[in-house]
């Protein structure tokens, strides 16, 4: 993802701003990292350049 996406990305739960932590960057693309909600503290991973903004109850690792 481009860092400019941060302008409109927010927490899907409470719509608060996110804090970006970059693990790996490739030119102007963020390849991996974490977006953390500044309000509720929920963490959303960036995996292979794509932010996983699924609410916690919809993530694959959570039993449905």
């Amino acid at each position, binding site marked *: *993802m*481009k860092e400019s*996406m941060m*302008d*409109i*990305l*927010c*927490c*899907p*739960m409470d*719509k608060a701003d996110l804090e970006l932590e970059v693990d790996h960057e490739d030119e102007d*693309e963020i390849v991996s990292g974490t977006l953390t909600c500044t309000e509720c503290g929920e963490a*959303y991973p960036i995996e*292979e*350049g*794509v*932010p*996983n*903004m*699924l*609410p916690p109850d*919809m993530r*694959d690792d959570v039993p*449905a």
Partner: protein
Amino acid sequence: MGILENKARARLFYKYLSQVYDKINPFIWNEEMRTEAIGMLDIQADDRILDVGCGTGFATEGLLGHENVDEVWGLDQSPHQLEKAFAKFGRTGPVHFNMGDAERLPFATDSFDIIWSSGSIEYWPNPVRALREFRRVVKPGGQILVVGPNYPKTTIMQKVADAIMLFYDEAEADRMFNEAGLEDVRHRLMGPSYDPDVAITTVARVPGGEDEVASTPAEEPEPDMAGDRGAGSDNVEPDEEPEPDMAGDRGAGSDNVEPDEATD
């Protein structure tokens, strides 16, 4: 309730359906229908567009073909569907991908000029809530387009439809869009020649914006109607209302009347 109106089930379904989705999809939603639907939108240069439920990227591709569109934001809940879209556009490039939920969008208020969503509404447990979320994320005066399956006319197909997922007709679409506080709601039935009304495409505008202010006196001769519009948010039921029943009502009922919805 249809068996797919549960996100976990829809996810599981798509895990397998994504293998063949683009092969079977053209039977209900083809390039001609896509072009016709895109033509219902007023797309300006630099408009920021979000494709909700972009799936394998069929509509995203059509949108990118529009002369005024250089990039599209794509959101889907299914990593398996998205893999197909990644193969078409790359993980990074003209499409800004996000995994996410249509009813709980990870975008700030007034972020987009246009939301497009085709072939997704039938899986939303609460369509009105998703449409309200669209209204929040789209700027005042912006446009929302939704393509969904038109409610079949024959009884046998109705039973099939009710068992599988949400289908709706024009009246039901009007109700959902109005309840979500959207305006200028227009519909068009679309389909291939052998089944010309298999899909229903609805376009609406988010209240507010310069266009509406300019055209209000000429286009809204009935003061009562304008008054209702102005107080639009009052007509909107709070989120706590048990709207998920709506889809269930459709499944069990034989007509469009939904008694528990007629509260105001």
